[in-house]
């Protein structure tokens, strides 16, 4: 209701949205370079992490001294405490590249130094080096297979309309890039929970894009009297409440996990919050404008082809065509931009004039504009009017 009546030209602002995404992704890439790749979690690097809860405050030096007898390779120490703990800095986080399956020596080394260890609140995880490589491999495969499956599903859903499928794919890649980038910026370690989040987000992103594209296809059949730009924009505003509400319901549960769940869930919820938000954003602000731009490129190409035919048939260019150009609200075809690469045989100057003549000439119903849906010069094989199983919502 709120969004429906809004005069919000999302398509017109597309370069702003692209810039926003570009900035986030660029920052992510810089962070990735700075970290020498995505920081990986224990499952993928191998080694051990040991969280020991002590019944007293400990200092790093005493712990480090105590641990010498446990003979750990290059242990990284970190002291922490939880709000509910009785003593400040009573938790020791030890991480090492070594895979320690038996925590006994670590405990006894600490106990020998007089540190009281609460074993009921300790946590140990260790992964052997060969297994971590295997896990990383399997996870990458999982990512690739999931992407391919989603691409296949997109192809199945938009089989006869290549443009929709490819743009949905771009949105998908966008979301993966944003997730990886933000993870790198936040310097969080990507572990198997991150993989789970990635695969979930991929599904969510595809779903969200399909919902909006279905509406665009549906409106493409009904709204034949407005430009493609405003039709897409209207579709976005119509589905905006849905987009926002579905995002909100998922975010509600994710924020509940983030704020009330334990540390493990926090990490997982963070990845999903980033990914799901990006998934919803990309469908509206990336995929749909790209669809419009693709359409414009097609129009230009078609105009060129048509032009060429016209130049051959009638040599005289139509003068004054540019004068009748209506004030373009959403100027999708930027006249200032260079014409696309000419076909080899076509002579450039008259074609350029012709092109503008064709696209800008008043159409049969007297309404000026860029509408090629009604006065398209030739059959359009992948037009929106193609019957498809599209029940947008």
């Amino acid at each position, binding site marked *: *209701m709120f969004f429906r009546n809004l005069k919000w030209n999302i398509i017109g602002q597309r370069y702003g949205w692209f810039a926003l995404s570009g900035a986030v992704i660029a920052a992510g890439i810089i962070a990735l370079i700075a970290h020498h790749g995505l920081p990986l979690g224990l499952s993928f690097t191998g080694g051990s992490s040991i969280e020991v*809860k002590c019944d007293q405050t400990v200092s790093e030096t005493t712990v480090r001294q105590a641990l010498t007898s446990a003979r750990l390779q290059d242990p990284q120490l970190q002291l922490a405490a939880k709000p509910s703990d009785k003593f400040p800095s009573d938790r020791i986080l030890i991480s090492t590249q070594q895979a320690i*399956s*038996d*925590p006994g020596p670590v405990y006894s080394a600490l106990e020998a130094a007089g540190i009281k260890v*609460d*074993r*009921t*609140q*300790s*946590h*140990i*995880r*260790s*992964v*052997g080096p*060969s297994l971590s490589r295997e896990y990383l491999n399997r996870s990458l495969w*999982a990512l690739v*297979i*999931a992407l391919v*499956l*989603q691409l296949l*599903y997109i192809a199945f*859903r938009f089989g006869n309309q290549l443009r929709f499928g490819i743009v949905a794919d771009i949105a998908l890649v966008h979301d993966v890039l944003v997730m990886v980038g933000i993870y790198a910026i936040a310097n969080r370690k990507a572990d*198997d*929970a991150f*993989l*789970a989040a990635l*695969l*979930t987000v991929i*599904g*969510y992103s595809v*779903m969200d894009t*399909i*919902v909006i594209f*279905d509406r665009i296809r549906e409106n493409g059949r009904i709204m034949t009297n407005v430009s493609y730009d405003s039709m897409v924009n209207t579709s976005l505003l119509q*589905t905006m*409440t849905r987009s926002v*509400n*579905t995002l*909100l*319901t*998922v*975010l*509600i*549960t*994710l924020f*509940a*996990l983030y*704020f*009330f*769940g*334990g540390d*493990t*869930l926090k990490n*997982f*919820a963070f990845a999903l919050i980033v990914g799901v938000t990006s998934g919803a954003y990309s469908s509206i602000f990336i995929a749909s404008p790209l669809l419009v731009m693709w359409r414009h490129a097609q129009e230009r190409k078609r105009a060129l082809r048509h032009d060429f035919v016209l130049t051959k048939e009638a040599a005289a260019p139509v003068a004054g065509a540019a004068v009748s150009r209506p004030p373009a609200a959403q100027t999708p075809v930027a006249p200032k931009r260079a014409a696309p690469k000419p076909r080899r045989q076509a002579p450039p100057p008259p074609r350029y004039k012709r092109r503008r003549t064709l696209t800008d000439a008043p159409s049969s119903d007297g309404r000026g504009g860029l509408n090629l849906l009604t006065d398209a010069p030739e059959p359009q094989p992948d037009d929106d009017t193609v019957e498809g199983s*599209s*029940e947008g*919502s």
Partner: protein
Amino acid sequence: MFWFHWKHPIKIAIIVALCVGCWFAFSPVAQKVHLGLDLQGGLRALVELEPTHDVPKIDAGILDEELQVLQTRLGGLGVSELTFEKVGADRINIEMPGLKDPEQAIKLIREAAVLEMRPLSSEQLAKGQNNSAALYKEAGPAIITGADISHATVGTDPGGAPAVEFTLNSAGAKKFYEWSSKNVGKPLPIFLDQKLIEAPTIESAISNNGEIHGGFTQDSSIRLANELNAGALKVPTKILETESVGPTLGRIDLQKSLVASLVGLGVVLLFMLVVYRVPGLLADLALVVYCFLMLAYVSLFGVVLTLPGIAGFVLSIGMAVDANVLIFERIKEELWGGRTTRAAVGVGFKRAFWTVFDSHVTTILGAVVLYWLGTGTVKGFALTLLVGTVLSLLTAVNITRSFVDVVVDKDLATAPALYGV
């Protein structure tokens, strides 16, 4: 579908019966739902069997034998829900939720427990007192091995220190009697995993039982008795991955994740009610039915609930409601378009169905891949998300529809405002 041609009272009765059935399936929750070791504390270990000179290839038979031995050994630790799962050709995943002493369990998994009694002369023994490996090489062929022992128990030596008492089987007893009667006064060192643990001297001919004192602690004597009873491992084990969670830590995580789930569920219920009014309330009812179904599934199929599993469940709540948002937004649009509530509801459900279906298919695709290739605990997430997605397609569409139909047919809510318009 037949469902939509049935009369309302029948449908409602079926839904109520379903809920009652679920209630009996999962109540009381504390007893029926099995908690994973990350929620109640415990140990998980992924063990790989390593080929040796004698056993160059790990085949199914070896894997089974090894699993048997490990099962018997770890069975003595008093863990009620011990699970062993073969992974691939040469791996065993062991889960021990509720395990109190992970260090003991790790040793039980690791130690081959090959017990050998090999003769050595007193001079050799005196010379190489501190070098087990050298002594093991010098010692003669084994007189008695772990395989000759029929039963071992924990006892105490005259000084009160823990010891392991063993009884030999008949073949072992015969061998032992023959050797000891000829070698009175000579030492017979006992090696465990090629390490000298004791070098007793034969005082008289022994036939069928004896005692090992190896400077044991209570724990290590229990372990050795346990290992002797279960038998030695056929091939050495290598621990690839372990996770050990303290019980208190697990309980804290359980409480936190329960609070998170309830808060998430509560806010989502409220959100739907405020935004979509009457249908929102009905969707909330359907969501409660969904939660009942999920709990019943977890109880009936003995699914072990883990932290990632709970995350999957919570996420599926958010996604279950998504379907309702799609449908109700569509109904609102139809109402704006000037349709009557009855027509708008019919068209809304029909037009939104394929979109809802899409959203479920894409989620299921991801979950299936994750379940197939995911590692360790992530599988739990994938499984609950998968089941949750399938169940939510049922509740969010069919059950919500049944409730909405009743309201519409009885003209209980005709004003568009009640639909959030």
